[in-house]
């Protein structure tokens, strides 16, 4: 029996692939010169890349990092690399990078925006990674107020009393349905916080500050600038646009004709005009729409318009997510006897938001890049600061170094976010 076995019991050694199928030459042949046309393209592109690098790399590295003005910089480069050498003057970055990052924020308080920036990651962690304990969501809820307090400073009671408005709204929506019915509770939950903010929040904050004075040095909006301003506008825009966008998207799908028309009109209007016109509205027009005598600062007005802008785009993203949800989900929710708000909150929205996360991220990338537009209406974001720096006598004439630095900053942030959204897209693919 056993000696009839025709099954090989020991493995053969692995053999090399046949000649001409592996190795660097074959790889080059297959990937760089598969045909004549392709080979010509390869040669041309290698030549172009060489030209580009030959132009840029010497300029980048034959540079000066320590000079204190453009002339000094050029002299240092000529001294080091010979007369007539053109080199980058990275000294301007070395001297001004703090300004490009923080604007005119007091330098001894830099830790505040930095800390707020890092806490931002803690706050969004539960959204980004599902391994983070759910308890962190409470921190996410108070983060906006905390960040506001850290960046602008002042009394701690101002953000706390603002937060109390939301708490009032939340408890109204939890307690009141039993008392006055669900529709009444929703209306009350929307109206009570507004009443609180307009009438009570200010005096309460003042009173608490009188009893327990806790405050840190306050920093005015005019001190905000640089990358901090871009991040601030971007994050405020995206965070506030999410709830507004959800409401607009729901309104756009609503069977209620009037609600639908209002939402569609708003979304299409905002999406039809360029952001710069909305920023013009913020800089010149917005105060006209407020009661006579009110005036609030430009950064806040810009944030309002950017939020409206982002909301319209966010609404479209979420509408895409809603459209992707099978009809059976709605019907199942109805069959369970859930009313519209419960079905939306418990069944529809979690799925729609999950589908839309990659698009929300790319929306955020777009918005973050668009924050550079505020330099046109005179705010000192990184691009606006390049002009301010060039206006100095010492650095008059520096062009490429500043733009390269700003471009690099934006590239790092946007590129890593876009990679992250691609990772998310792969991770969230629960299909087959």
């Amino acid at each position, binding site marked *: 029996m056993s000696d009839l076995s025709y099954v090989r019991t020991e493995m053969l050694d692995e053999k090399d692939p046949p000649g001409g199928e592996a190795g660097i030459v074959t790889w080059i042949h297959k*990937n*760089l010169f*598969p045909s004549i046309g*392709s080979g010509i*393209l*390869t040669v041309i*592109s*290698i030549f172009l*890349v060489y030209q580009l690098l030959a132009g840029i790399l010497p300029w980048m590295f034959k540079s000066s990092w320590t000079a204190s003005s453009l002339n000094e910089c050029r002299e240092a480069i000529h001294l080091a690399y010979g007369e007539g050498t053109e080199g980058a003057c990275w000294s301007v970055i070395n001297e001004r990078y703090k300004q490009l990052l923080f604007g005119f924020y007091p330098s001894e308080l830099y830790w505040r925006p930095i800390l707020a920036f890092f806490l931002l990651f803690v706050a969004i962690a539960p959204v980004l990674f599902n391994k983070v304990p759910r308890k962190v969501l409470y921190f996410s809820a108070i983060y906006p107020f905390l960040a506001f307090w850290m960046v602008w400073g002042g009394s701690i009671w101002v953000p706390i009393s603002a937060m109390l408005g939301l708490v009032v709204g939340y408890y109204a929506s939890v307690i009141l349905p039993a008392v006055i*019915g669900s*529709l009444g509770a929703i209306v009350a939950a929307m109206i009570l916080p507004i009443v609180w903010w307009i009438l009570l929040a200010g005096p309460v904050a003042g009173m608490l500050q009188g009893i327990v004075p806790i405050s840190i040095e306050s920093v005015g909006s005019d001190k905000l600038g640089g990358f901090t301003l871009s991040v601030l506008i971007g994050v405020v825009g995206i965070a506030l646009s999410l709830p507004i966008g959800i409401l607009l998207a729901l309104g756009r799908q609503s*069977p*209620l*004709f*009037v*609600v639908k028309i*209002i939402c569609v009109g708003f979304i299409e*209007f905002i*999406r*039809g*005009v*360029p*952001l*710069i*016109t909305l920023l*013009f*509205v913020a800089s*010149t*027009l917005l*105060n*006209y*729409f*407020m*009661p*006579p005598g009110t005036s609030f600062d430009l950064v806040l007005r810009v944030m309002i318009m950017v939020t409206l802008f982002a909301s319209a785009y966010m609404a479209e993203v979420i509408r895409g997510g809603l459209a992707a949800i099978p009809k059976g989900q709605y019907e199942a929710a109805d069959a369970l006897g859930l009313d519209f708000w419960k079905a939306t909150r418990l069944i529809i929205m979690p799925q729609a938001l999950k589908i839309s996360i990659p698009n929300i991220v790319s929306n955020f*990338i777009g918005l973050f*890049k*668009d924050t*550079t*537009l505020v*330099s*046109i209406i005179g705010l000192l974001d990184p*691009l606006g600061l390049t002009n301010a720096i060039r206006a100095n006598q010492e650095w008059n004439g520096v*062009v*490429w170094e500043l*733009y390269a630095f*700003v*471009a690099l900053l*934006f*590239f790092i942030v*946007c*590129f890593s976010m*876009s990679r992250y959204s691609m990772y998310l897209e792969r991770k969230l693919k629960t299909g087959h």
Partner: protein
Amino acid sequence: MAMADQAGNQPAFRLSMLIYDSRYRSLTIQAVALMLFMLAVAWLLSNAASNLAALGKPLGFGFLSQPAGYDINQRLIEYNNQMSHGRAALVGILNTLLVAVLGCITATAIGIIVGVLRLSSNWIISRLMTVYIETVRNVPVLLWIILTNALLIESLPKIASFRGKDPASDLILWDSVAVTNSGTFIPSPVFGGGSGIVIAMFVLSLIAIVFFGRWAKARQAATGAILPTFWIKLAIFIIPALLFFFIMGRPVTLEYPEMARFRFEGGYVIRNSLISLWLALSLYTGAFIAEAVRAGIQAVSQGQSEAAFALGLRPNKTMSLIVLPQALRVIIPPLISQYLNLTKNSSLAIAVGYMDVTGTLGGITLNQTGREMESLMILMACYLSISITVSVFMNWYNESIKMKER
């Protein structure tokens, strides 16, 4: 009992049914929403009216007919600083449309080429295209526009260097085009007597090309014979017009830009502000279109190109006859939104001093007259109507190429 209830006793309408009866509740909600909306709008408008009245500038569009008093150096229609603000706004709108149309054309070309090359089997080409797309997409477009402008200003020769007996810089293309750091000077056509006939001939040959194309297609469908349509069309395009051009004794001549004492005279000038805006917008939007094109091509199933190879089509023919036409259906919707984005981004012209409608109406006119409300209203209306027109047209096109299903 039940019958009687249904027939006779319609439950009387009570006020509480407005909230508790689902038939009426939606009406109640809508009425309340409408009222709140109207109230909010009325509040904003009354605030605006009282604020404007307090400033002594009630709403009115009379300022549009006042003389503008500023110059626009890049324009498509006649304009000087004595003409009205309205005329300046019109020049601006045309400039916006000019850069939008130019940008859309080049961005589409760049997008298709880059998108196709990104999927190339050539390693270095596809990597290069990826680098291009990622670099361009992840840096703000405003920065690209300013950067391109700075690049043109710093790297091109000054006008002064064209001056003198032995100038440092020369005109290119047989002394007809001068590329300087303030703009590119190109020859302009001068139409003499009889040039009308040449132009008419040219138009006629364009019409002939369309009819020939249809005829050739019908013939191919009927007989299977393929004509070298491209060369024949090219011949129809060139020969008759050229023939008449010489018969009529060369009525159309070119006026070349000439170096006068301090500047070029004659010919047209394309300002660098326009060139840099055009270039930056096309490169930026082109990268986005390339991604859409790539996604569209990848959405066409592999079997299609395999079938085409099995039929013996070469890779180029497979791409242009089999893959791209099918990919087009996927590409068109994102393409629409990219065109709209490009048009809206063209408003950043203000950063390089190209006088588009944002620069004229929303910039100088607004600042000179102090009519923020009116200027911005017209400005937004302009962009809205452009956006709506583009999206209506592109949606119509999308409908027309959609797969016709039974």
